[in-house]
């Protein structure tokens, strides 16, 4: 574990995250309830509802949820 504070690169990353930060973000739990709808919307590549756009926005801010969703998508498409 590094003992240094944030490097300039990390602050750059944080500034990028702050650009995306907004008051109505979805949390890591909230999107799970709508994952079926989101999977369908992504597959159909149609316009997303406002609620599903919030999922998309969450994935931009949360790489762990994005990684999980990509794995779900892989499994779902092959089921």
């Amino acid at each position, binding site marked *: *574990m*590094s*003992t*240094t*504070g*944030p*490097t*300039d690169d*990390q*602050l*750059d*990353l*944080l*500034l*990028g*995250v*702050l*650009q995306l*930060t907004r*008051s109505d*973000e979805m*949390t*890591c*739990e909230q999107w*799970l*309830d*709508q*994952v*079926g*709808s*989101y*999977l*369908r919307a992504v597959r159909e590549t149609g316009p997303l509802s406002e609620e599903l756009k919030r999922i998309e926005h969450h994935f931009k801010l*949360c790489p*762990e949820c994005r*990684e*999980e969703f990509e*794995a*779900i998508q*892989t*499994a*779902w498409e*092959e*089921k």
Partner: protein
Amino acid sequence: MSERTDKQWRAELTARDAVAISDLRRFLVRGIARGLGDRAGRDLAEDFAQEAMLKILDNLDSLRADGGLLAWCLAIGMRTAFSELRRSRWKDVSLDALAAPVREQITPTAGPERAGVDETKQRLMSTLRSLIDEELTPRQREAILAELQGIPQVVLAERLGVNRNALYKLSHDGRMKLKSGLQRAGFKENEVRSLLDDAS
């Protein structure tokens, strides 16, 4: 696996029907194994599926699952699997250094590669460092600095004694403070974006 509607799944799982439980478990093992690819073997996928089954059965009553119960079950399975893998990867790493205020830690010195950096960008970075120290609570600071270092949320949440949802909110509140602090310090959003674009 027989085709069931969400309503049938819910009724059978709620009744702890052995066939439905067995079908769902098989679906989860296959899905988790496919989703994880070479990140884990079949044995681990079976363990993750077993753990996910318990969570699913415990949470059926509160489930909304708009758009498909099976997709929700798969999401619970995948979250369980990734959480375990991330926890295992970080199990021997100490997080103590993250709690120290930024100014007490070693900060990068201005080397030749920084010499040409625009003065406004330097001021922006300096303001951001001050905001991290002065505006954030210790827990918000710890959460945000840990995220910047790539520490998984499951690991950090356990360290802070909260669940992943609460951790996200903690970090979100901190980010909102930093964003607002930058605006108060006179940095407009488009100016920050432009400085970031210049740096990339």
